[in-house]
């Protein structure tokens, strides 16, 4: 069982991802904006952060940068889940320290498989 933090402002997407992660037996924490997400990450030191890009207060890319700059999160995997599908967006996210990238519309089963693959690294 791993600790997974889901930072996503869309309630419907968040509910679906939480459901899949819980089904897989993970401990799940959620937040709905970047600022709160950072706070929750510092409080729980998750094994995996599933991060939306476009969120209020602080966007996912900023959160990703901040997490990667903090040695506390050296072992934390980051998976971006976003509607931004351009090649340069993916490049930017990976350059910012994301370990994987899933584009919306997404398959929750594929997302879970990718999350588990990251966690088993």
């Amino acid at each position, binding site marked *: 069982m791993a600790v997974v933090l889901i930072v996503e402002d*869309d*309630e*419907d*997407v968040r*509910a*679906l991802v939480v*459901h899949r992660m819980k089904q897989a037996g993970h401990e799940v924490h959620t937040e709905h904006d970047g600022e709160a997400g950072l706070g929750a990450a510092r409080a729980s030191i998750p094994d995996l952060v599933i991060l939306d890009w476009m969120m209020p207060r602080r966007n996912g890319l900023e959160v990703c940068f901040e997490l990667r700059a903090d040695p506390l999160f050296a072992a934390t995997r980051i998976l971006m889940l976003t509607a931004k599908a351009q090649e340069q967006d993916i490049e930017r996210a990976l350059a910012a320290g994301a370990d994987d990238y899933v584009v*919306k*519309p*997404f*398959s*929750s*089963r*594929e997302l879970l498989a990718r999350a588990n693959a990251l966690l088993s690294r």
Partner: protein
Amino acid sequence: MIPSIPAIPTIPGLAMALLLTTATVCGLLALIVVAERIIRTALAHREEKRRDRVRPHILTIVDGDTPATLPRRDRAALSRLVADTASQVRGEDREALTQWLIGQQFHRAHLRRMKSPFALTRARALDRFAPIAEHAPRSIERMLGDRDLRVRSLAAQVAGRSGMAALVPELLRRTEGTRVIPARIISMAVLRAAPSSIAEFGDTVTDSNHRVRALALDLAGQLNLVDARRAIEAGLDSPSADVRMASVRSIQRLGSPLSLAALKRMETQSPEELFHTEVVIHELTVG
């Protein structure tokens, strides 16, 4: 007794009456705006509460189970929520959600509204119908020929978002003739529909209309359809400069040296065409 004579309104009196009337009208308008805001906020709040209540049922549907029976209004809220969520997911999740929507006859009201005489109503119905569009390609095809450009454009976007590769020929033909759709919208729709083979372009790659053919060949290259190589090479012999240039660009994108012979055979008709062709020949030769 002398009868009283009604007072003749003075200019300051008229101005005061006008001022009072204007103030009353403005006050009424402000009240209407505030009331409309309050009603909208209350309705949105009620819808949000209803959505929160029915959200867990989505997970039941995604897991392939049947949700518990709900009151009529909650069921309607669940349908709207399922439709919104279906557009955010794909694969088995989407299939489970759309099948549930079809089972609830979600499409019936929207199909009816898509025949409305009002463009805005048709557009709204089409937008709500989008999550289950792939199950009704003929309805979307019909909307591609709608009398309103905005509705036609929306139908093209829906076809693209829903990955309706079967509609690619119809989309491409909409760049010409009557009731056209702008080429940039068609291009985006075809790219998003992502046909996996040139066969899905139908006969548009040999269409007698040069613009349709040029766009088809260009998009085949952008989609990197390797099985389109021969159709693209055939475009090099077209009398239309648009078709020839689209073929050259697509050959460049596919990057196959097998196209070298066809490129060298091509009869260029302008310095620009010659330049582009030579650049591609060089790229394919160097490797």
